[in-house]
């Protein structure tokens, strides 16, 4: 009895040793990401499918918390020499990562070194534009890109006597519709918004073709200065303040605006502006009402044809300090990741943009956009017209700190401590100070 147990134990031990050596033969590629909940499950499924598709490499996704937490963790790990091969960094961190030349293995170089196909022109122009350096090279792998759109409560529109199939096109219409919604009692407030910085300031500037900062919105170098205290932005912030006082706009909080989605889901506000990647959440939470989708509104007295919106979301950065074997695995994984099938499944499940032209074509062929009305609003909005220097995107170092300063000034304006002009002037001054610090630290 005892002998058989020992024998069984030995056998198990040998089996374990064999299986672990089989695992050891695989090269492990660590991937730190910031996708929680459903998005995280989708991401892990991509890694699992890649691992099942071949035997040489094993991609291990690790959830590291929010975007800022993931970036901070990766930087701390890099300083300690424990960095992952791949880290997902949000668009706000792009300036920081691009300046960290010694830490980053540029994707275009990685793909060339490992003889993997990589054609920048296969990606959507606004995506490529946002993530290329001044020499036109893509430094990080586009993965999850989004752009803000407008969601609206069709049921509330109907109750207010509005046509549920007509979304407000201009800000004047947003105001008129909101008043009607509030006065009729269809909802307590007209509209709310996530990301005051990204949606109501950065994208507002792009849409109306006004500069956000000098040197092509920061693409031209570290000596850039902010300019978002121009007449268009001031007028818009003034309106937001007035609308907040009249009760037709409700503020959803700083950074991403945590309170904004609940206001929309609870039918307190009938219109909601946020990332196209909020689509899954909106559809999942809109239990008692029907949702409409529309492009962001604009001021028709400022611009007749609004420019394209700009992107948010994140890209995958490859960090230095791994073995060539690992980088080979990263390159193979990136090739897998950019196939239309993988991209289409990701895009359709999450609401992120189809980042390659082929993915969009595949979705059209599959009849996805016809079957899901509103799912192509984001892609149409971000690809419309010819991008100008003002709508190509923004690139500033320490942008998340700048955004905090903007949020703080916006709140001061809402509380009546400052006028829109004063608040934006103060935000620009604080932002420029942060830019100078970044410039000094990266010279």
């Amino acid at each position, binding site marked *: 009895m005892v002998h058989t147990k020992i024998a069984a134990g030995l056998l198990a031990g040998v089996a374990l040793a064999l299986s672990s050596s089989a695992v050891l033969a695989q090269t492990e590629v660590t991937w730190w990401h910031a996708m929680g909940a459903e998005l995280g499950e989708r991401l892990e499924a991509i890694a699992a499918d890649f691992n099942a598709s071949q035997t040489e490499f094993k991609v291990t996704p690790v959830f590291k918390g929010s975007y800022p937490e993931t970036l901070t963790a990766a930087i701390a790990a890099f300083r300690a020499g424990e960095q992952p091969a791949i880290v997902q960094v949000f668009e706000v961190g792009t300036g920081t990562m691009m300046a960290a030349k010694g830490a980053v293995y540029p994707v275009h170089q990685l793909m060339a070194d490992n003889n993997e196909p990589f054609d920048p022109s296969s990606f959507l122009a606004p995506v490529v534009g946002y993530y290329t350096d001044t020499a036109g090279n893509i430094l990080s792998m586009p993965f999850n890109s989004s752009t803000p759109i407008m969601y609206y409560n069709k049921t509330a529109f109907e109750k207010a006597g509005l046509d549920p199939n007509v979304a407000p096109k201009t800000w004047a219409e947003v105001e008129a519709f909101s008043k009607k919604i509030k006065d009729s009692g269809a909802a307590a407030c007209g509209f709310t918004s996530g990301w005051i910085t990204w949606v109501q300031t950065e994208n507002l500037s792009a849409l109306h073709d006004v500069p956000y900062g000098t040197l092509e919105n920061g693409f031209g170098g570290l000596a850039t200065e902010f300019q978002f205290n121009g007449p268009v932005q001031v007028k818009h912030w003034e309106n937001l303040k007035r609308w907040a006082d009249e009760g037709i706009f409700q503020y959803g909080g700083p950074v991403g605006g945590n309170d904004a989605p609940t206001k929309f889901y609870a039918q307190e506000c009938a219109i909601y502006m946020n990332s196209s990647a909020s689509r899954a959440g909106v559809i999942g939470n809109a239990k008692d009402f029907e949702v409409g989708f529309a492009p962001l509104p604009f001021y028709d007295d400022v611009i007749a044809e609004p420019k394209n919106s700009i992107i948010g979301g994140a890209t995958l950065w490859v960090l230095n300090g791994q073995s060539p074997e690992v980088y080979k695995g990263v390159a193979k994984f990136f090739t897998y990741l950019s196939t239309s099938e993988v991209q289409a499944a990701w895009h359709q499940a999450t609401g992120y943009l189809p980042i390659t032209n082929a993915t969009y074509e595949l979705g059209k062929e599959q009849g996805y956009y016809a079957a899901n009305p509103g799912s192509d609003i984001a892609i149409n909005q971000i690809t419309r017209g010819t991008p100008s220097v003002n709508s190509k995107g923004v690139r500033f170092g320490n942008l998340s700190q700048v955004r905090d300063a903007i949020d703080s000034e916006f709140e001061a304006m809402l509380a009546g401590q400052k006028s829109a002009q004063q608040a934006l002037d103060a935000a620009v001054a604080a932002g420029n100070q942060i830019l100078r610090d970044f410039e000094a630290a*990266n010279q």
Partner: protein
Amino acid sequence: MQSKRTVFPHKGLPYLLLAPQLAITIVFFLWPAGQALKSSFEREDPFGFRTTFIWFDNYTRLFGQPDYLLALGRSAVFAVSVTLLAMSVSLLLAVAVNRLLRAGKVYTTLLVWPYAVAPVVAGILWWFMFNSTIGILPYLLGQAGIAWNHRINGDQAMLLVVLAATWKQISYCFLFFVAGLQSVPRSLLEAAAIDGSGPWKRFWTITFPLISPTTFFLLIVNVNYAMFDTFGLIDATTSGGPAGATNILVYKVYADGVLGLNIGSSSAQSVMLMLIVIVLTVIQFRWIERRVEY
């Protein structure tokens, strides 16, 4: 005071016995504090490729910022409110429980529960309750004619974080006060009662002075808690807003260093915070401790 001196024959033994504690202090306190001190004199990019020694630039910049001075004032308001509120409420609860004969244990257990809640979770709980859309309290306050929106109103936001931080700390203070109250000799209280003093007088002339060591200890612990331990809670409830109304020193350290990746300034701020707390503790020991009777 005279006491008998015990002389240990081995010179090395005391140090050996102290070694584990010393190692912990050095590794987890002195070494990181030294690192913070060092990087507070430097300017560095987040990845640490370029480090420049810049003397006191981080400090002079800090005191040139009106934001920092405002945060200093807010921290004082926050720490004083949380300490006073947490200690007075928990003392009240402890006295009440101490008078109970039977259900005291049950109340004690229930009142200690919040201490097991992580700061961020506590923050989320309060964020839910006070959420202007789905929260129950803004709804009730709205019925009473008070418009609650801590996303815009800075005073309300401060009230919210003070309440949340206090709630989290009451359990801890309560436990110590209960223990302190139980060590007050009943004979003293009975003697005073026989002499004709009422409960109010008995409390202030006998109980309160006798639990002064506990009160003093809690005072220091609470000030340290409010100054150092509350950034998770603030992050979850208000993120320092609106317009910086709840941006206290420790949250600013976290926001600038961890979120903003400005390590030099963040280190300078944490060194300042450390100095402030050291000074406060020294003051407390020098002047307040004299009035404590052990």
